[in-house]
């Protein structure tokens, strides 16, 4: 069964259309990266999926209408929307008590075991923790919930590199088990590329790219072309070209890898590079990917 099934999903705030006719199917057991520039409609789409906002069009999450059947849905769905949204007055021990009290699928021992690996004290209040520790605590709470869908909306924004890395490593090693589905948005695309199974680019409320990582790797290729081959390489219709240390790197979509090998080493481009190629041009200035 598809975990998320959207047909013509649309959401407008007054005259501003945040999500403009999105068709998306996410199968169970996938890790989907939802990538887009600021204001692309990522958060709005996720809010619709989480039943936080009404929407137009068809949307089913785990077979339920997220807006009308939200209460039922939240037993199987969990999310981290933004960093540091844990209430600042709460003690770490209270957060464990509370989630254990209200969530039937919460495994307290699991959360405790995860916290034991951190330097977070039970008696601390959230306001006394660093931003990275708050993210760890939130992840500990969420990972101990046996949810079928986990949505992460910029869960590591503003954290340093070490916290970000351990966040995603923990998620992949201790949580993901191929039956759960994870949807994640982040601006640090390169850091999650290796954990994704699928990638979706969204811009201006529309889906620009929707591929599994296998397809992504098969389609896109990047070659650092020798100057003398540049004209020949350009004839194959690269979708993007950039210069690094005076040499040109050309990005191709759907061109036979064997043909490209004639110009130099062929490698799989990063999601960030493809993102810039597909979306960066539309925005006059380069968008932080």
């Amino acid at each position, binding site marked *: 069964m598809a975990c998320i099934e959207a047909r013509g999903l649309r959401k407008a705030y007054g005259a501003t259309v945040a999500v403009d006719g999105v068709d998306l199917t996410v199968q169970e057991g996938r890790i989907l990266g939802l990538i887009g520039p600021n204001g692309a409609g990522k958060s709005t789409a996720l809010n619709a999926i*989480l039943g*936080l*906002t*009404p929407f137009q069009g068809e949307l089913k999450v785990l077979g339920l209408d997220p807006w009308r059947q*939200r*209460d039922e849905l*939240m*037993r199987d769905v*969990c*999310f*981290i*929307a*933004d960093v540091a*949204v*844990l*209430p*600042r*007055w*709460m*003690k770490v021990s*209270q957060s464990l*008590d*509370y*989630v*254990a*009290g*209200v*969530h*039937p*699928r919460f495994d307290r021992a699991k959360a405790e075991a995860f916290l034991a690996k951190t330097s977070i004290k039970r008696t601390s209040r959230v306001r006394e923790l660093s931003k990275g520790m708050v993210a760890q605590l*939130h992840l500990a709470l*969420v990972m101990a919930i046996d949810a079928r869908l986990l949505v992460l909306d910029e869960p590591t924004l503003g954290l340093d590199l070490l916290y970000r890395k351990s966040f995603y490593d923990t998620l992949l090693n201790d949580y993901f088990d191929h039956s759960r589905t994870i949807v994640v948005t982040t601006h640090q695309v390169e850091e999650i590329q290796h954990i994704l199974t699928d990638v979706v680019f969204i811009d201006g409320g529309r889906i620009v790219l929707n591929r599994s990582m296998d397809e992504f790797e098969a389609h896109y290729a990047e070659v650092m072309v020798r100057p003398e081959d540049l004209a020949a390489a350009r004839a194959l219709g690269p979708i993007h070209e950039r210069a690094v240390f005076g040499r040109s790197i050309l990005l191709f979509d759907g061109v036979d890898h064997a043909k490209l090998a004639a110009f130099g080493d062929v490698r799989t481009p990063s999601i960030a590079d493809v993102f810039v190629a597909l979306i960066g041009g539309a925005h006059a200035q380069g968008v932080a990917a």
Partner: protein
Amino acid sequence: MNTLTDAVPDSIPQARASTAAPTAPVRPLYWSLRRELWENRALYIAPLIVAALVLFGFFVGVGHITSDVNRIQIDPDKRQAVTAIPYAMAAIAIMVTGFVVAAFYCLGALHNERRDRSILFWKSMPVSDLKTVLVKASVPLLVVPVILFAVIFAVQLVMLAVSAMVLLPSGVRFATLWTQWPIFRMSVVLAYGLMTETLWYAPIWGWLLVVSAWARRAPFLWALLPPIGVIIIELFAFGSGHFAHFLGQRLGGGLDAAFSDTGSHQAMVDMAQIDPARFFGSLDVWGGLVVGAGFLAAAVWLRRTRDPV
């Protein structure tokens, strides 16, 4: 045989899941309420502080009171009224504190979580907006009155014990004290008074919760401005003060609605004046409850649809 052995391990986790999944429906409500008290410790700390101040004042002044009592020993009726005054004043001081704290609680209850964005955490838990708002409404409607009753009762008990210690050596018999300080009768009056005042204020709690769920900032101002605006407009447009009178009735009329007027000029309402038939037969009471319920429904809807601020 194979199908049977295959079926057994499958059915066990299923059975376990079905017994574990439906937790008692009160459990999330209980923990949601606990969480309100964790966040809003003023709900019980403020009445306790006032209680401590009241007791301190009483200890300091206990000498005057007993001498007053002895002076007017001749008229037992008058004496009872005089001795009841400190008890009543203690009850009123603590009660007013509790209601003020409850009002501020309501103003913040659905606003603070949007301001600090923690609503995104609360909403990631399987607690519906309806349950959340009902739990929050139960704080002024249930939790605060219970806290107030416990604190006031304890304070009055301590006051009684202290007066007894002061008076008994001067030859007053304990039995006399007991009849003169009718603490248990007073607590029945107290419980009834707290219950009726709380219900009488239902539309006010509801209004404060709606404003809390609606306002982007300064819920305190938004709670006050509309009623003040209506009063001013009415005054200038029609030269009348019906709405002001109506509001005054709502704020100060709770005791009138709950206790019958026996014409006595006692400082304390007493047992004989308890009049549930009058209270629950009053259209004002039921009207207030209906309006309060309407406000709560609006607060649920707002919590569902409003974005964090």
